[in-house]
């Protein structure tokens, strides 16, 4: 008499809260999700194949377009991998290293701000969206001041940086950094202790530490489950080993813990920026590029190198045949792609409204998932 009628709903690719062109085929019983199947590939541009057909420096702008809300870290991962392949990691001038750290930490903050804005508006809180964009705008202004671009920065080169910092840039960063701590407090005052926010996030999409490791989840989703793993600490690159910062970890591995982790990460990034400013001021102006030949032709070999992008472990795997200026093969390990695979398991048994929160909490960017 009471037979179950499953309904199949296409959640996306055009839907307000799929953060791009993710399509999830939902099997629902009433509002409860029986099965969620993410379909990806709507934004596939063949970036990896493109890399095989252009010289290494030409690839850098294409890395911008993968995780398009965090292009500085994409640049960083790529140039570091090529540098590792060429064996010039040690030759990068200190000023360039610090500039890279500063840009990627600013990028981390801006990416987390965008995540918070969209995550909050998905759950129905409208105001944090505008608050976050207010600060993100300032970061984008800083980027614009440095390299002329706001989103697709193309701000790093193999062997160093393209340009030195503009005269007042560090002062502008200092101004931003001083105010940003209060801004994070402001977001938290709207959400952290809000009962409805807690109801919507506590206990939603729990990932156990073991599962998280088995799935290969990295970044805030992994740390939210209580695993202390941050590549900035585990395999320090650039000058992270001499900078002080804490790794925030959660306890329960639910959406709320991941939220707390990211909020804390923004504070930590802010702290790193604060430490960097005097260090950069102490380095000689103009010393931003290692002395390498203009033509990048790495020796034969293969290398995998990964960095901590805002979303997790961003890895590049490059094979060079030693003869051409192109990579023989370049594979990207995007954190969003790997983290997204946990979605069906996280969503099962929850309600449709939770799916929206879950897509928000794993913080995917489809440009990176599909490449």
């Amino acid at each position: 008499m009471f037979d179950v009628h499953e309904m199949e709903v296409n959640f996306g690719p055009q839907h307000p809260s799929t953060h791009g062109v993710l399509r999830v085929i939902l099997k629902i019983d009433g509002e409860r999700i029986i099965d969620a199947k993410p379909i990806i590939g709507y934004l596939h541009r063949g970036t990896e194949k493109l890399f095989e057909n252009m010289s290494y420096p030409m690839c850098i702008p294409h890395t911008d377009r993968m995780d398009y809300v965090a292009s500085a870290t994409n640049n960083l991962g790529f140039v570091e991998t090529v540098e590792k392949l060429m064996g010039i990691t040690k030759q990068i001038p200190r000023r360039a290293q610090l500039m890279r750290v500063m840009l990627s930490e600013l990028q981390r903050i801006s990416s987390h701000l965008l995540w918070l804005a969209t995550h909050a508006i998905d759950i129905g809180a409208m105001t944090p969206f505008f608050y976050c964009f207010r600060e993100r705008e300032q970061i984008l202004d800083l980027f614009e001041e440095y390299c002329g671009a706001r989103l697709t920065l193309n701000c790093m080169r193999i062997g160093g940086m393209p340009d030195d910092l503009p005269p007042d840039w560090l002062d502008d960063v200092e101004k931003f950094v001083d105010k940003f701590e209060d801004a994070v407090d402001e977001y938290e005052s709207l959400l952290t202790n809000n009962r409805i926010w807690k109801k919507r996030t506590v206990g939603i999409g729990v990932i156990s530490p073991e599962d998280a490791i088995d799935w290969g989840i990295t970044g805030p989703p992994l740390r939210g489950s209580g695993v202390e793993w941050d590549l900035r600490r585990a395999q320090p690159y650039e000058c992270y080993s001499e900078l002080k910062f804490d790794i925030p970890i959660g306890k329960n591995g639910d959406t709320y813990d991941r939220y707390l982790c990211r909020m804390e990460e923004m504070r930590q990034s802010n702290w790193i920026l604060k430490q960097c400013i005097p260090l950069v001021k102490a380095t000689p102006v103009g010393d931003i590029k290692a002395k390498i030949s203009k033509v990048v032709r790495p020796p034969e070999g293969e290398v995998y190198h990964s960095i901590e992008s805002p979303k997790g472990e961003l890895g590049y795997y490059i094979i060079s045949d030693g003869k051409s200026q192109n990579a023989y093969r370049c594979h990207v390990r995007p954190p969003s792609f790997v983290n997204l695979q946990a979605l069906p398991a996280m969503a099962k048994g929850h309600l449709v409204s939770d799916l929206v929160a879950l897509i928000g909490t794993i913080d995917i960017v489809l440009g990176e998932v599909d490449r």
Partner: protein
Amino acid sequence: MPEPLMRYLIWPLVKFLVAFVIVQVIVAAMNWIERRLLGLMQARLGPNRVGKEFGIPWGLAQIIADPIKFILKEDIVPSSSEKVAYFLGPMLPLIPAFLVFCLIPYGPPPTFVVTHVNVGLLLILALTSTGVYGIILGGWASNNKYSLMGGLRSAAQMVSYEVPFGLSIVGVLMLCGSFDLVHIINYQASHIWNLFPQLIAAFIFLVAMNAENNRTPFDLPEAESELVAGYHTEYSAMKFAFFMLAEYSSMIVNCCLMVSLFFGGWTLAINGYGLTTGVLRGMGIAGGILGALIFITKVMLFMLMYIWFRATFPRFRFDQLMDLGWKWMIPLALANIAVTGIVVLLGQQFNFQGEVVLSIAGAAIIAFTLFLLLRPRAKVIHARRVSEA
């Protein structure tokens, strides 16, 4: 013209039309007010340009521009929709939303009351609860899964919150002993605003009226991030505007009820002192207009509260919404009825004024809540930090 005709047909019609026009102007203006106020709260500007060419300040011409846009947009009817129901959908909620305006007393009677019905409150409740049919019909007829879910959510939400909505009024009825809104308002002017003796009822009423109007944090039927736009996903142009109109009209109705039931309507008096109905009527037509202005001001304050809520709260999940309604609101409303009844009966038995006791209790609750809100609290617990050894 025969006197009964004037009295029972012409005058009510004229008064209804005047009230209707004023309310519709407020509805249109609400659009602008809401966007500007949200802009103010969210560190942005809101519409501030339209009308600059004609010397109209602050983007006020947005109030006219929006309806013009709605009329001029293409009216798209999905080919697979159920046509009759699809057309009925936006119209049905409008009828009760407009009809109710002839039952609400805007100022001192008889001039500012369109029709004086002695069971006005019941009639209003009966009419407003039919508004949901249009939403369900529209959601179902669109032949869109998201719309259907929106419509069903709306139905369940209306059924659940109609109960505490109705129950919260019972306490007021027991105190005032009448279904007549005019009588209830006069009673408050000669005693005290029902807010104090019926604090819990007022709170339940506030929550339930938010839920009835599908406003944040209960805006699940339209939840734009989950259901695209819910029941009105497939509606465009004037049909969509009808849904909007109905929603804002019923928001105003609920605010009017809130003001009439708990905040003394058009009067500004306590224990018979101040601007009571008698005083206002003594001032002639000026007093009447003053009363109506007081009423509208109070109503607008509650309308602004809706906007404030919208800027503050995230959205509930569906099961949590039901939880709140059935497990908290209804028992609380029933308890309120029981306590009110007992106190009123005891008052009659032992000759003391029941509502004084209840008022003191209400004031105590307000004081305690303020204390809880304002006391210094421990800082937020952040995620555990792992420092480098």
